[in-house]
């Protein structure tokens, strides 16, 4: 990828001159990592086996795995886990095909592609909270532009924010609105990096557009597809802002995913230790992602 740098074979003095400063370069980064990752993780683990809460007067005591029994092995947690899984699964099933489809069209480099690419990327980086507000206004059942559109086309009205299915649908729509451009961008980069020869050979052999897509493009894109899928799963666990603004987990707790559950327990119910226990389990669930991602960055 880059010019290989010469390996340094240090004598003691060279070591002091060349290696010591290298560690020094990373010390500020270590400062941030220790303060915001390492200490909080240790603290989360220790909190999770105590009964610390914000309305507890007096010292916290050790309670063993009680928090894990009362907060993790419960229907509320399992429900939130299922909600998280639904958001991730349906999100992937919608966002990856649509993103890939748009990317293949942009990849044809038709006239005006640059304009379309700019326009399609627009939703990607907009403030999620603001995006949630924008869509909430459009989802409004009496005054919203979406229901007006649905009524004027004669379809059945949807109770977007008042029903469980409507809540799921609205969060998935808003989430996809922001994620599809991201997937599209990745896929476009992947397509542009593919070698030209297999496609030329296929054309000579008379393969149609769909055939060359199915048997050449897709297999070659496999690594990119896997990475995008991994990022989407990670982002799915993180999903918080738009859920908070659009349904706030409602109606009831129908759309309350793990991040929101943990927030509620930790900050609405002020149960710090119980929140920490939920967090520890969430962090552990993502272990495969840390390993895969670390491998991906090292290759």
């Amino acid at each position, binding site marked *: 990828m880059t010019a290989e740098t010469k390996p340094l074979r240090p004598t003691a003095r060279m070591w002091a001159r060349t290696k010591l400063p290298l560690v020094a370069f990373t010390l500020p980064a270590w400062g941030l990592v220790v303060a915001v990752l390492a200490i909080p993780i240790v603290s*989360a683990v220790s909190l999770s086996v105590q009964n610390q809460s914000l309305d507890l007067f007096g010292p916290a005591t050790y309670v063993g795995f009680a928090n894990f029994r009362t907060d993790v092995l419960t229907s509320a947690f399992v429900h939130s886990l299922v909600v998280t899984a639904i958001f991730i699964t349906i999100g992937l099933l919608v966002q990856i095909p649509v993103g890939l489809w748009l990317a293949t069209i*942009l990849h044809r480099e038709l006239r005006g592609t640059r304009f379309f690419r*700019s326009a399609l990327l627009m*939703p990607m980086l907009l403030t999620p909270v603001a995006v949630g507000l924008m869509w909430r206004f459009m989802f409004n059942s009496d005054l919203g532009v979406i229901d007006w559109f649905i009524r004027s086309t004669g379809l059945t009205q949807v109770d977007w924010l008042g029903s469980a299915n409507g809540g799921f649908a609205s969060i998935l729509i808003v989430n996809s609105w922001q994620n599809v451009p991201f997937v599209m961008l990745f896929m476009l980069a992947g397509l542009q990096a593919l070698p030209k020869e297999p496609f030329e050979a296929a054309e000579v052999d008379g393969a149609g557009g769909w055939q060359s897509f199915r048997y050449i493009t897709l297999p070659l894109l496999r690594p990119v597809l896997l990475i995008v899928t991994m990022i989407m799963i990670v982002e799915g666990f993180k999903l918080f802002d738009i859920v908070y*603004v659009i349904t706030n987990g409602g109606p009831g707790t129908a759309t309350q995913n793990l991040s929101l559950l*943990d927030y509620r327990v930790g900050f609405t119910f002020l149960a710090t230790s119980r929140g920490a226990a939920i967090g520890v389990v969430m962090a552990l669930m993502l272990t495969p992602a840390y390993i895969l991602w670390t491998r991906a960055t090292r290759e």
Partner: protein
Amino acid sequence: MSPRPLTRLRHAGSYFVLAVATIIALFPIFWTMSTSLKQIVDALSIPPKFIGFHPTLHNYSRLFHTPGFGTAYVTTLEVTLGSALLTVVVGSLAAYPIARRWRFLGRRPLEASLVIIRAIPPIVLMVPLFNLVINHGLYDEPLTLIVVYSAFNLPFAVWMMVSFIQQIPYELEESGEVDGASRLRILVHLVLPLAAPGLAATTILISLIAWNEFLIPLVLAGNSTRTLPLLISTFVQSRTIDWGVMTAGATITILPIAILTVFAQRSLVSGLGLGAVKE
């Protein structure tokens, strides 16, 4: 030489898909901005008024007079710029030895830590962080927000700078080494000036992410450090939502990002996929 009919049909189909997708991508933004300029009767009229209403800045003047708006705006700018600066400086320093593939103490653990920061759900860290911040009297302080934002955004900065530094040939640095310049001097006077476009791209992307941050200030900011996303999120919590002020608030929040997405697109695009996809 006109294209074959089948190709033409495919082109037409492509343009149709692109046009529909573009409308879906842009309409919510257009709708929010236009609603923010409407009087309440126009904003809530059925059928909707897409054009042909009397524009007014009334909603914006009400937004600007919302208690706490000025403070929130200034705080958001301060925290965004402060954390972008900190993240980029710390990130560039760490990126340099990583980019050059030198072996040094703690290299692998640092790389693994960056991946974990990027992948761990932030709420997991926010619960214990809140506890720590309260216990050390750091609650509701801009500096606390700046440091926490920077830590969460550090992976983006490091990965972006690594890829930009790797585009600079190492031979240039060897001449500096011969002259006996220290590594830090080589980085500051030789490498970073050459990586200036990358430095700019990183700063822009990190600023955008910091501007959008919600969960961190939701937990760590009190009344004096409330940020813009926090302020506008309160607009939906009241029973009767004031759509005029809400759309004005959403517009003010997304406007800088929409502008940067148009004008700094290449910078942003180059940074987003890094750390996961190798070029």
